[in-house]
């Protein structure tokens, strides 16, 4: 690939053709503030947060939307630049007045707070470019502008797939997860933490961050540039986590009462001992191959390795399989 050399803040940097000034700055360790930019989307240059000075240009240029070329001389700081940036900050702060009365929606996942919206259109562009669902639109202009599901319908009735990618890309809290808001407890002083792990639904294996407050899951999110998913998630991965803290979860071992036929709670010691005794008894009477083991393709590698080892090394049978061998 052809490369170009340019000068940023007096230092030289080599970049690949097609890379933007924002990429070039990143290579030098300069992280410019951005708002409308998401490197998974086409460059937009709408918010002007990332302005830099370019020699020969009449006014500052947006770094995210300006392609590099050989010999460019760029500066990322300076008095004039600071003044322009301050003005832009103010503009972004300003609340679209009419938008205060925009929609609320029946769906349980996606909420919108127009007061936080800076009209950067990242959500709309995400939905158009990445999801190709065209389920969001930018309505009105200037201070009257807001974002809504296409034609003002409910998310539940449009082509929206409830992926929540619009929430993921939103640089403010304008688009938010309703589920998270519901379970997040402002009063609680339980520790907030974030744990990087892998989605438990399909075989794509998206890398996710589970946000938790004490022992409660409060959100699932993903980071751009991480894992096979590059920050994208689907509806299941992002939103289907209520089962984790669900009241129907099993919390105690159960054994069947042979007289009543009912399952009853018991101690671990008792459950394990009944299971082991019966397994050994059956092995003795009918042979190892009369026992069968079904592993879950939902469990971890370590779990299922241990299960087949138990079957093979302790019971002495190769009767191990899983439900979805596909």
């Amino acid at each position: 690939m052809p490369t170009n050399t340019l000068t940023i803040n007096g230092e030289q940097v080599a970049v690949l053709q097609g890379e933007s000034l924002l990429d070039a700055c990143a290579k030098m360790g300069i992280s410019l503030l951005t708002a409308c930019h998401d490197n998974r989307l086409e460059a937009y240059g709408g918010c002007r947060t990332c302005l830099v000075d370019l020699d020969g240009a009449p006014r500052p240029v947006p770094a995210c939307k300006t392609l590099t070329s050989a010999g460019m001389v760029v500066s990322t700081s300076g008095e004039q630049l600071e003044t322009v940036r301050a003005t832009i900050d103010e503009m972004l702060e300003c609340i679209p007045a009419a938008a205060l009365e925009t929609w609320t929606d029946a769906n349980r996942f996606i909420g919108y707070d127009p007061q936080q919206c800076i009209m950067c259109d990242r959500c709309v562009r995400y939905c158009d470019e990445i999801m190709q669902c065209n389920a969001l639109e930018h309505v009105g202009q200037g201070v009257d502008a807001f974002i809504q599901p296409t034609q003002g319908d409910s998310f539940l009735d449009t082509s929206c797939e409830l992926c929540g990618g619009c929430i993921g890309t939103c640089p403010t809290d304008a688009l938010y997860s309703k589920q998270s808001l519901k379970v997040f407890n402002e009063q609680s002083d339980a520790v907030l933490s974030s744990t990087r792990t892998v989605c438990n639904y399909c075989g794509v294996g998206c890398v996710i961050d589970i946000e938790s407050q004490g022992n409660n899951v409060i959100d699932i999110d993903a980071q751009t540039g991480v894992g096979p998913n590059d920050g994208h998630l689907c509806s299941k991965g992002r939103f289907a986590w209520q089962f984790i803290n669900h009241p129907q979860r099993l919390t105690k071992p159960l054994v069947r009462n042979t007289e009543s036929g009912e399952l009853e709670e018991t101690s671990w010691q008792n459950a394990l001992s009944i299971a082991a005794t019966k397994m050994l008894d059956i092995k003795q009477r009918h042979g190892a191959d009369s026992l069968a083991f079904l592993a879950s393709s939902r469990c971890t590698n370590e779990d299922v390795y241990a299960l087949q080892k138990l079957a093979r090394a302790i019971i002495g049978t190769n009767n191990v399989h899983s439900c979805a061998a596909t």
Partner: protein
Amino acid sequence: MTNSIAEIEQSECMLVVGSNTTEAHPVLALRMKKAMRGGAKLLVVDPRKTWLAERADVHLQIKPGTDIPLMNAIANVIISEDLHNKQYVESLTEGFDEMKLAAAEWPVERAAATCEVDAGDIRKAARLYAAYKHAGIYYTLGITEHVCGVDNVRSLSNLALITGHLGYEATGVNPLRGQNNVQGCNDMGNNPVYLPGYQEVADGAAREKFSAAWGQQVSEIPGRRLDQMLDGLHDESIKAFFVMGEDPIVSEPNVEHVHVGFKKLELLISQDIFLNETAKIYADVVFPATCFAEKEGTFTNSERRVQRVRKAVDAPGEARTDLQIIFDLAKELGHDWGKAQPSKVWDEFARLSPNFSGINYARIEESGIQWPCPDVSHPGTKFLHEGAPIRGKGRLYPLDHIKPWEEADDDYPLTLSTGRTLYHYNAATQTLRNEGHREKQPKSFVEISAEDARELNIADKEEIVVQSRRGSIVSWAKVSEKVRKGVIWMPMHYAEASVNILTGDGKDLKVGTPEYKLCAVRLHKP
């Protein structure tokens, strides 16, 4: 997958067979969407008009169960129009002549009649697939859940081999795994004929290695596949069943028959996070387990990438991790394996499995590694078969049409096909517990073509009975352009309208995968 998910973006042509990718593997489909934006050609083979099918350059809306005739015809066009990669075929494959002869039995016009698609479309698809270098095949359950599942897959690998579409980026033959750790579960040897790392039970040296490592003799008797285990319930050769995180009476076909078998069991042990249907009725002992968010370990995704799973929250009540439960049970059975430590278990597996030996927790702390990865200096493998097929020469198979186990007839004139939807997952024990997902898709439905609906006088949203030779369920009609005449489609997720009551005993003749995808049914009003 022979190839990697990120590579899909570089595709010039994608052949998507029996995979409703945007619903079953939504985030992988985003890469396909990106490739399409970049101008990649899209060929879709599916009896249903899926999101991708609607946007495809060619959609071959075949009659369900006719994949082999179609693939044979495509191979036939490629060979007879001299579009195959002669050099690759000559030096790196075997069985070309037999395969060519078998394919020649399926001239385009004959296949078009059998598959009920346009002959011109078959030609167009064949030419496009052969024309581009970065052409990959993507398939899923739509292709494997048939009596001829194994041959279906072979019919696809035939296409890749004759065109040499193997061994570099954005190409190959790529099964998309339905559940998160199907890949890992197979890698770990949860298979009656494979020990961990795909080392065969039949191989004496492999058995010796594991026997020595485990201090116990590994049996040389091959084990039973799931379908054979279930058969064993009926003839009472299986007396005890240990079921980890699965719900066979909901997920296995021909439910009534499965019930009869389970009644005969002496011992059923269930280990799960919820009290599932099987456990409710049949379990003698139930161990409360933990979900993915409550434990440490690894999953292996479809592209063979081993990634770290980490504990975010504590398990509820006295629930224990699955690994702990198995270690506890081992101890109770007289074998003390020591402390249940996931990283140690992984290391034991990796030490015994050459293709995985280079992977350890420290190396995958930041990001996952794709096996094969034989040693710790190996970066992992993005795509397989580089330079040449792994086994030296790629095997081409002569294949012929195998009729479905049950075909529509006068009594049961419609073909039922089943699948997943975007908002739910398998038996939906997890997603149906999410209010928002239940709302978007609260109940079971039957997609039916407008033509069939008119003939049967069925209105949209009307309650209807779906009946097969095994049983019947109640559902709601959804008149849809997605299905073709003669075919109806139902999601598999709803316990109250479990489609497995309808499905039959058909299974793949070679590996026993149940034929979930089709059976013959009729519809009537309740």
